[in-house]
């Protein structure tokens, strides 16, 4: 019997001809990442290992993104310890403002097709956009990797999701991932790897493919992975990645489930307040007022997201009473948006820009605290009650186009109904 992409990558990294779902393997890692939320625990666990060499440190990046910039002394001290650890042990370091881990790893050329990549964050599944198996781990795991370059894995079952047709203008990967959450529920694909295939995936640019894989974390997925194509290879080349090892599923691979979604008929989707899997079509929302609009996070803080917002808001103003924050996913994206004039367009429209990082997704920098009774529409991946430090505020989720259209009107709005809301890259 044939193998799925995840089975092939795990088998190759475990030095085996084949592996099967449920089996436990010890696999060689290609690259590892530690964020500032788990760095203190990681450094503690490395201390427990004793006086060990860390030969894999050179293939590990420490990323100061969640507490960026640090909101208090405790966070600042964690950052100081990360800088010292990095210098002493020889890891790579991405400092505050450089960007979110899941953006700076691919941008830095640290991964390529066929790789096995681990990071101390559940959204490490994002690397599947580049045909790499990326998955989230904790401090003990990454300590083991830094010491031995290996880690144990239980081989996941794979679910194959075929996206037929092409998304309509104004509909994005975010809308597919929200529809998937509506269908399977939060954690509904716990332990599983997802393979997204089909014409709608082929038509997506890399930014949207990263969203597609990133949001699989909310489904509980261990990985979400795409087959590579010329767009993948060109992007990786442009970012200095090493030679790719393209990995494809066999025609007779075994899947736990096979699902078909008609991408062409999909309308923009939104997650209603508090529940990431309470999903409705934006066309079913009637006069839901908003006070805050956020574009950013590792899910939707990329250049195409900022372009969507600029297309809607160029030469216009935010609706009265609406505040808007844009947080680019990385310094490189910030610079690209600057050079394209997008920052000027959005700033004139009334939006504010934050330095690249995770702070406006999860309320740990307190740079975005909604007031009591406020409704936030956000491109983030989670909307749990209180996630932005106020249990009396509501967070809804949608694509960058939906968020921008909503910021323009003051109500949750179908982007296809406003000028510029169906913008799509000419590439």
């Amino acid at each position, binding site marked *: 019997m044939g193998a799925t992409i995840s089975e092939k990558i795990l088998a190759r990294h475990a030095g085996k001809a084949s592996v099967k779902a449920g089996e436990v393997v010890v696999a060689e890692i290609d690259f590892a990442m530690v964020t500032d939320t788990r760095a203190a*625990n990681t450094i503690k666990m490395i201390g427990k290992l004793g006086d060990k060499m860390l030969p894999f440190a050179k293939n590990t990046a420490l990323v100061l993104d969640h507490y960026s910039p640090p909101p208090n002394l405790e966070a600042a001290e964690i950052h100081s310890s990360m800088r010292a650890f990095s210098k002493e042990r020889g890891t790579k370091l991405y400092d505050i403002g450089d960007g979110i881990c899941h953006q700076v790893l691919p941008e830095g050329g640290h991964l390529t097709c066929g790789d096995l990549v681990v990071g101390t964050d559940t959204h490490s599944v994002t690397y599947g956009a580049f045909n790499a198996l990326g998955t989230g781990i*904790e401090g003990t795991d990454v300590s083991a990797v830094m010491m031995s370059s290996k880690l*144990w894995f239980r081989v996941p079952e794979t679910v194959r999701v075929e996206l037929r047709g092409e998304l309509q203008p104004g509909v994005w990967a975010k809308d597919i991932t929200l529809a998937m959450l509506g269908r399977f529920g939060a954690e509904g694909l716990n332990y599983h790897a997802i393979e997204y295939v089909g014409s709608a995936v082929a038509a997506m640019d890399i930014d949207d493919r990263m969203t597609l894989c990133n949001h699989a974390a909310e489904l509980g997925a261990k990985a979400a992975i795409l087959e590579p194509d010329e767009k993948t290879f060109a992007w990786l080349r442009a970012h200095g990645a090493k030679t790719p090892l393209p990995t494809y599923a066999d025609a007779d691979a075994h899947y736990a489930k096979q699902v078909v979604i008609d991408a062409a008929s999909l309308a923009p989707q939104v997650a209603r307040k508090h529940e990431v899997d309470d999903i409705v079509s934006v066309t079913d929302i009637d006069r839901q007022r908003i006070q805050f609009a956020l574009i950013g996070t590792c899910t939707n803080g990329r250049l195409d997201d900022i372009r969507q917002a600029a297309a809607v808001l160029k030469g216009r103003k935010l609706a009265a009473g609406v505040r808007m924050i844009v947080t680019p996913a990385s310094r490189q994206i910030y610079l690209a948006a600057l050079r394209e004039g997008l920052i000027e367009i959005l700033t004139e429209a009334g939006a504010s820009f934050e330095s690249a990082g995770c702070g406006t997704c999860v309320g740990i920098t307190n740079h975005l605290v909604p007031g009591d009774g406020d409704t936030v529409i956000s491109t983030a991946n989670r909307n749990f009650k209180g996630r932005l430090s106020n249990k009396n505020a509501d967070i809804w989720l949608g694509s960058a186009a939906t968020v921008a259209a909503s910021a323009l009107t003051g109500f949750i709005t179908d982007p296809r109904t406003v000028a510029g809301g169906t913008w799509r890259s000419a590439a």
Partner: protein
Amino acid sequence: MSASNKLIKTGTAFILGDDVNTDINCSNKYLPGKDIAYVAAHAFDALAPTIAADIAAAGGGILVAGDHFGINSSREQAVHVMRAMNIQAIVARSFGRQFFRNAINNGMPLFECDTRSIQAGQMLEIDFSSGVLKIDSQPIQSAVPLPSEILAILSMGGLIPFLQKYPDWNFA
């Protein structure tokens, strides 16, 4: 793997429900500055108000839960807290993916099976190598046994002691 990795745990059943978030209920993520002993004394308070005290009074036990125990981006500190509570093992219908890793890496045995028939206070005996759970001495549940690699890590008390003994993972 040799029979030396036989792993059996016994204890009284303490019951929790579905979707237990161990970051919220069993870590200091939302209790900044509180140590493991404090968190252990108050763990799961919001879900089962006396469970931490009851487990302490019994000298430990086995946690029994429904789906997705340890859901979301679980911190491994939760397992350190549970070990401080003298929890011997956790039985659930399923575990959050990261929690599953954290438990194995920190020496906490896990057993996946249908838990609906287990009542609070029953005596459980779990043989992780054969995949048999006995409830009040009646062997009525079976699940897939833990793979030998995981039994090896658990029998050493977790991944760090394991790697101190087998730095090249060559334990087979």
